[in-house]
């Protein structure tokens, strides 16, 4: 069975600074996808970034980037130049190739302080 662990229930960062959210996962699969989703108070889950496991290059989306360490089964999210609108719950998710059962971590509540 696949599990996803987010070891930081809550984090805070000053506006304009950089913060890293950690995520580890456990699987015997070799092909899979990893995702970071953001859930603001509106409850709308929004995809932040995704990574295909077969790609060695770390995914980047503007201020968001990941550090994917496949051997260590680690998938951290770095948010640069944090903005107040980044305040939200962040969920790490794992989905094996050709499988319907996406597994989510318990989430990290990020607060960006002015």
């Amino acid at each position, binding site marked *: 069975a696949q599990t996803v662990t987010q070891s930081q229930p809550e984090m805070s960062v000053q506006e304009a600074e950089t913060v890293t959210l950690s995520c580890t996962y456990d699987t015997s699969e070799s092909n899979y996808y990893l995702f970071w989703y953001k859930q603001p108070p509106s*409850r*709308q889950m929004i*995809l932040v970034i*995704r990574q295909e496991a077969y790609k060695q290059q770390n995914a980047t989306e503007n201020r968001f980037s990941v550090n994917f360490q496949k051997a260590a089964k680690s998938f951290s999210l770095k948010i640069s130049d944090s903005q107040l609108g980044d305040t939200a719950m962040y969920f790490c998710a794992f989905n094996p*190739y*050709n499988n*319907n*059962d*996406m597994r989510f971590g318990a989430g990290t509540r990020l607060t960006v302080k002015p």
Partner: protein
Amino acid sequence: GAGVSQSPSNKVTEKGKDVELRCDPISGHTALYWYRQSLGQGLEFLIYFQGNSAPDKSGLPSDRFSAERTGGSVSTLTIQRTQQEDSAVYLCASSRRLAGGPLEETQYFGPGTRLLVL
């Protein structure tokens, strides 16, 4: 439509009553998912629909839970004889994922229905 919509946004019911939650996926999306998010928890997969194929029900927690998808579009999640532990936010997502295909396509989530069972 512009995004996935769900109704109602909030539902309060009494223990033992049946509830129906509705999901309208993005037009053209063949894949539809239901998830449950309990307070302070991550998302729990419930069921997956792909076009007109038989759904993957492997995540449904009990036989009180059922779902259908009419015409390959709108989906309804039904919870019979609700229990207090059913209280949660129920999220629906859709994607362009093709039948038998890998999870290449991003899932787009609705705003969820917050269910409270008294």
